[in-house]
């Protein structure tokens, strides 16, 4: 089938502001949007720029706005979109070029929640024990691939300074891990002005997450934890 992709373009070396260009390509309905983008890049216009790697939704490279919603280009099939597709970069980040945005602020948010296991007790010779039930508490949030679909879909993130859902998801992953000992410090960070309370339960994050993580639920669990532990 033939589809038309309307893609937002921007090259800081030559353009003063972003503009749109249309491309028409011949694709299979079961092709991914990424396949269409690759086709354009490979055979029509080599200057079209985007990130990609795994091509099956596990590396988090190709988050972008597809028909107005944040999606991974490699996880959306053409047949689910129809013949007219609009593609734009994620909102809220500086555009480096075309669909490539500067992810450094996103990773700075991530680093701010201390996303690593902290437990200074001397470890046992073998593994630390953890029951399947304890393990299940944080299973959902271990799935995060840091693609930024959620954070870049949050209207609060577009307008003000805040940690954003992805960072909280990753804080949750450690807060609910029975092996971690730094809950208090992490909760203190999350309790700050730019922490969890900035979340207005808008659910755009959950709607956007390509890994099906219940992002809002994770944030709510963290809120309740602060509420009942700190006050």
């Amino acid at each position: 089938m033939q589809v038309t992709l309307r893609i937002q373009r921007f090259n800081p070396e030559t353009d003063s502001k972003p503009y749109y260009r249309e491309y028409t390509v011949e694709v299979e309905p079961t092709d991914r949007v990424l396949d269409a983008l690759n086709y354009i890049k490979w055979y029509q216009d080599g200057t079209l720029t985007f990130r990609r790697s795994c091509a099956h939704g596990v590396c988090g490279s190709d988050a972008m706005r597809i028909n107005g919603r944040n999606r991974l280009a490699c996880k959306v099939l053409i047949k689910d979109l129809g013949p007219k597709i609009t593609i734009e970069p994620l909102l809220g980040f500086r555009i480096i070029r075309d669909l490539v945005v500067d992810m450094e602020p996103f990773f700075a948010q991530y680093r701010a929640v201390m996303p690593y296991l902290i437990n200074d007790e001397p470890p046992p010779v073998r593994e630390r024990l953890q029951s399947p039930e304890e393990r299940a508490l944080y299973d959902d949030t271990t799935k995060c691939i840091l693609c930024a679909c959620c954070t870049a879909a949050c209207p609060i993130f577009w307008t003000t300074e805040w940690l954003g859902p992805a960072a909280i998801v990753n804080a949750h992953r450690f807060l609910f891990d029975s092996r971690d000992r730094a809950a208090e410090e992490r909760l203190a960070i999350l309790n700050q002005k730019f922490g969890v309370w900035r979340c207005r339960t808008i659910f755009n994050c959950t709607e956007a997450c390509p890994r099906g993580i219940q992002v809002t639920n994770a944030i709510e669990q963290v809120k309740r934890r602060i509420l009942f532990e700190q006050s």
Partner: protein
Amino acid sequence: MYHRFDAVIVGAGGAGLMAAAQLAGQCNVAVISKLYPVRSHTGAAQGGIAAALGNVEEDHWIWHMFDTVKGGDYLVDQDAAEVLAREAIDAIIELEHWGFPFNRTPDGRIDQRRFGGHTRNFGEGPVRRACYAADRTGHMILQTLYQTALKKQVTFFDEFMMLDLLLTDDGVCTGVVAMDIETGELHIFHAKAVLLATGGFGRVYKVTSNALAATGDGVAIAFRRGIPLEDMEFYQFHPTGIYKMGILLSEACRGEGGILRNGLGERFMERYAPTLLDLAPRDMVSRAIYQEIRAGRGVDGKDYVWLDLTHLPPEVIETKLPDITDFVRTYLGLDPVKDLIPIQPTAHYAMGGIPTDVDGRVTIDEKNTPIPGLYAAGECACVSVHGANRLGTNSLVDLVVFGRRAGRHMLTFVRENDFHPLPKEPDYRARAEVEWILENEGTERVATLRAELQEAMMTDAGVFRTGDGLKRLQQKLGELRTRYSQIRIDDKSRTFNMELVEAIELGFLLDCAEAIAASALAREESRGAHYREDFPARDDANWLKHTLIARTSGGLQLSYKPVVITRFEPKERVY
């Protein structure tokens, strides 16, 4: 721009990050990666990581070692396999202490599952050895290691692409040259020790489970700088890739009880591996699939067969294989609980690569002479623990065990040695390459050449090979090499020029392909993943040895080095 670090690690997959974690805080270390670290292909690994913990049933590291050796069709260096099997246990425990979220047994220990080729008591029957986290074990390894690296405050240079390795005339490694992809600027990293951990090169094939970024950069750069490559003819095809797309459906599918069926609905593995059935090593299963297809028993006469999970309890599918279920639903519109899944072997893993010793030091000849300051680990390296065919779950073990050993060795090395002066004009070669590609006014498109390369490799250097086919392939590669000098790219800007990156990567792929073709043509036997239809038998008398292929001024040069055999004498491989 000039940087100076005690140690520079190129590649932020499992191998690179594991090494970085050893060095962080102990010396001045930088990690360079052309992708954001969490985008590395280690994150795609699904099924598990093997270690003889014996948590759910009796197991011993020596059984694991045996399976590794046998699985590799006895081309494995047994000293290395012993290190792998022994240290796997420590490495897994260390990962657990760093926060790895393993699935757990009811009593809280690390749970284990079955995987292809892993057996109890030297081949008696399948054993549960693969530690796992649902079907996203690689994702968790990558995350855990990245988290640990952040905790230890490693310096990262994200989206920096290595273009060249700096070796002095007397053969000392002094650093690397990399391009900041965002600005196109070249950076010189002056280092005492460099680790190459740039991953595999599955993109030389048309149908592959590998990422678009898996283009063998480190392997090709080493090759260009005169370092020989080992066992490049051994390339693993994984039996269960999604038909046409190549997306991997982990062996864990079969580990949890999945069955392969041909077009007639038969469980055909009964004919090929009566004991291990669907869990036989990958090379055997992939060949079996093609034999069924050749015998006309593919589905509808096409080149695929079925993976059948429908008899498994739905909760096993949903909870132990959630991502795979998601892939099948997303990309095929099928439900693995009810539907058969069309699969086809997919290019998956390079057993060969940059030769190293068990400490990750890159060696340059048959006598294993190391290059001072140069290390390699992970899929780009060949310690030779995988021999002619890698067992499932052994790659992740390879990353953590040898990434760790390389890191530790580097630490002693940087403590004992001083900076070596850089060669004059260290970046001239990289600069010339970039400028050449940007300015060349030819007629060929990168994508066209790449597609032809992948097609040719798939046909003539795939699961089945023949002397004639490989010669034809070499000719084709020669033609592609000439046409490569005629390329032209549309994108002339410096900012995030991905077309430039792809053009450079195509050069790397060509190098890898040439090494594969020449090594495969020379090896006149069938062993593991290398199957020559014109020489269908294994030939230990003449070929129980590792291939080394080097680029010299006089063309490609082959040499061979002996296999290290310590405990297990080569035997016929039946399952």
